[in-house]
């Protein structure tokens, strides 16, 4: 199968990248295989698990559902770009303090989805958090600790 490559240019975690890619290359493959950003994981092939969630211009997207070329000209933030100046993002900190992870495989996606959720709704109820995380599956935690972490991170936002 021969395909013409296209050039994509995007900012990922604050750095600019420009690469020639096949049009069928998924954004998550581009991030993992070309940029070495393996913090974003892949759990399914049906856009159901949310493990691959990243922020595109501040909003959460499942990077397994987008082609890299669709992100051309956009800004992407992955879990690897979340901590600033060596300080964990409040959501990352809350995930640690509330033991919101076990194997960690869903965690990058969960954190990114939570960040996006709190951007949209800084004071979500437990029910809103649960429905906001509906597209992200975790097999280890039973979600309770994740919901608590997001609540706590929301409270954290209050004080800032």
């Amino acid at each position, binding site marked *: *199968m*021969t395909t013409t490559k296209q050039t994509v240019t995007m900012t990922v975690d604050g750095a600019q990248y420009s690469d020639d890619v*096949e049009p*069928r*290359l998924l954004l998550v*493959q581009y991030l*993992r295989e070309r940029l070495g*950003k*393996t*913090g*974003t*994981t*892949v*759990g*399914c*092939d*049906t856009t*159901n*698990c949310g*493990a691959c969630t990243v922020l595109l211009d501040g909003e959460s997207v499942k990077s397994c559902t987008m082609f890299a070329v669709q992100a051309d000209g956009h800004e992407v933030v*992955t*879990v*690897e770009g*979340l*901590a600033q100046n060596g300080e*964990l993002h409040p959501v*990352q900190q809350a*995930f*640690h*303090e509330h*033991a919101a*992870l*076990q*194997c*960690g*495989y*869903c*965690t*990058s996606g969960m*954190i990114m989805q939570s960040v996006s959720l709190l951007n949209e709704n800084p004071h979500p109820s*437990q029910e809103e*958090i*649960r*429905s906001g*995380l*509906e*597209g*992200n*599956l*975790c*097999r*280890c*935690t*039973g*979600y*309770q*600790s*994740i*919901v608590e972490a997001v609540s706590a991170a929301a409270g954290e936002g209050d004080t800032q």
Partner: protein
Amino acid sequence: MSVTSDSETTAEIGRRRLRKEDARLITGRNHYTDSMSRVGMLTLGMVRSPVAHAKITRLDVSAAKASPGVVDVLTGPDLADSQGSLPNAWPVTPDQKAPAHPAVAIDEVVFAGEIVAVVIARTAAQARDAIELVDVDYDDLPVVVDLEAAERDEELVHPDLGTNTSSVWVFDSASAGTGGDVQQAIADSDVVIERTLYQQRLIPSFMEPRSILVDPTGDRIEMWSATQIPHILRTMLSMTLGIPEGKLRVTAPDVGGGFGGKLEVTPEEVITVLAAQRTGKPCKYTETRSESLMGAHHGRAQVQRLKLSANKDGTVTGLDVRLLADMGAYLGLVGPGIPVLGAFMYNAIYKFPAYRFESKALFTDKVWTDAYRGAGRPEATFAIERMMDELAAELGMDPLEVRRKNWIKHDEFPFSTISGLEYDSGNYEAATDKALELFGYEELRAEQQRRRESNDPVQLGIGVSTYTEMCGLAPSRVLGSLDYGAGGWEYAQVRVLPTGHVEVVTGISPHGQGHETGFSQIVADRLGVPFDNVEILHGDTQVAQRGLDTYGSRSLTVGGMAVVAAADKVIAKAKVIAAHMLEASEDDIEFESGRFGVRGTDQGVALGDVALAAFAAHDLPDGIEASLDSDATFDPENFSFPHGSHLCAMEVDTETGQVTLRKYVCVDDIGTIINPLLVEGQVQGGLAQGIAQALFEEAVYDDAGTLVSGSFVDYLVPSAADLPSFITDTTTTPATSNVLGVKGVGEAGTIASTPAIVNGVLDAIRHLGVKDVRMPCSPSTVWAAIHDAGSGATAEAPNVQTARGDQS
């Protein structure tokens, strides 16, 4: 030794320590297999059979071989001489029938998803393209899907075996001398409850798809795999492929969950090694989710035919279990042993006077079954807890009253059970009382009564389950008596470095449980060193040279005890050196809080000083070897027996069949708690999986043997929106069979929650005439059960596996 900390002590054990593991996982610096690559690495793609049972009449790989980037395409015949047969380590009976299990099918496929060819290409995209070009013709053969049909032997999965029955395993209390004759008990009893219960097929559904990387360069083969069992895998691979074990290094780096699903020697692992050997290049294979759902082993899948006899006052007199266990098309690593493990748990926490268990392991044209969280014990607990509820209903008794009547009382421990186990400790009264208090049982019963009387379309159900399990697999001699191919000991090494830091090597291989944190706490207490100065190393056969890995809640109970044993040896050695350094008699040396002191004086040396002296070795006592380290293996004397009581309340909409979980309370007794945070995580996650079996998940095959629930669209792993918050608590009755007093917690939530939920659903609708609901209790299933009961039709759900109707 300091065990628990209720005061201002500095004890680590019992402390709510945040996890060491988190730092890398929350920042994306994880180390999962698929995140790794090697220079010149090739990628594998699997060609899988779309049909369940067929002869392969033509397999043409020429176009695929000519496809861009393709290095080679391997077929079953290509590998016939080198691939061996995948191992089954648990021949439960001497006459067990076990078909050869090729990694790549040779001329016949026996389940949909079986691998028929392997593409080796430069990139994953090229491998995917080439898979499409492999041309296979299949000549269909009869397909055996239903377990009860399999038992009838009308069509055979492996015609050359002449039957679908692989083995029949029996335990009879009368012949074992542990109890009476069950047929007699049934004949003599006032009531006999008879039920056939179905344990649907489940898919472990770890979030990280399986991934394997093999580097054959250099003179050794190095493998990274998303596995729970790097040590067992190394031994089994070397036995299967004839690679000298010392030439094979297996590493399980960060592993994204397992739940038994990665307790396997997989065809994909064998294939990746063979591909790497043939090409001489690093090869990697990472499955897609669809491949994982159809090709990684499933769990549960049993039909349980049960008879429970009792007297009018609710005293149980006997239990007869006849089990059909779906092995799938092949025997997995420990598959046949799973119903056998369950056999020991049907008597649960009760004093049964007569018991007989018989399981038939049957072949079907489906992917094989093997361990899944709890492995055998959830199935057993489900059966007995459902039957205790049926007995209560029959006698008009409260379900908890029936249980109290039959359970082993606190003052009766240690207790020898009818299945031949010795329960060391337990307090079912305390756990149940605490659960009842947290739950508010009486008020909920009153509300239930009101809803019934007012014919509320939304009824309230209260579900109960009490349980015990056997953890800490296992005393090696017990495993030997059950014909398991290996032991149940564990290995550890403790090294005090010259800087005073401590490295601990363990043979267990965690995949999310937080062992780095829990083990650090144990060692910090034992050696009196700071928590942060302890480093736990695991999951690499070159680092932990021995080990039997992680499954069956054995990590703390067996692995933790090996660490304690190694630490104690280090202390003993250090004591000799300290005595020498202090010019004192060894008998006068006391070790406390990381320091060796001379009794009655203020003289002493810290552990780190001893380590430095042992490292420098300038002046060691005669006969003492340099360096302060020691290793140990630990083989438990007995299993451990955590237990608990689970209570739940749910609303059941009788018009739609929708079940909405309102409250879930559990009190588990897991003995000494090392870290409450880790315990809560394990319990909550376990509850989610057990509830998922009761309400959501099922691996559904159609009549042609095609997996209908072949993606996360149809296989319903619950999301945050599907589950409530849980109220979890503990009581503590330390295990007496290990010095830490730990019992294990990984499976508790899963084991107890499934029957609690189904009992609750039935409790809500039993007054409508419903006697049973099959799992998963989806809206359509529950609605049909209510409808059928009302219309006078049979209350038992239809005996066919159908796709879940509520998906559309």
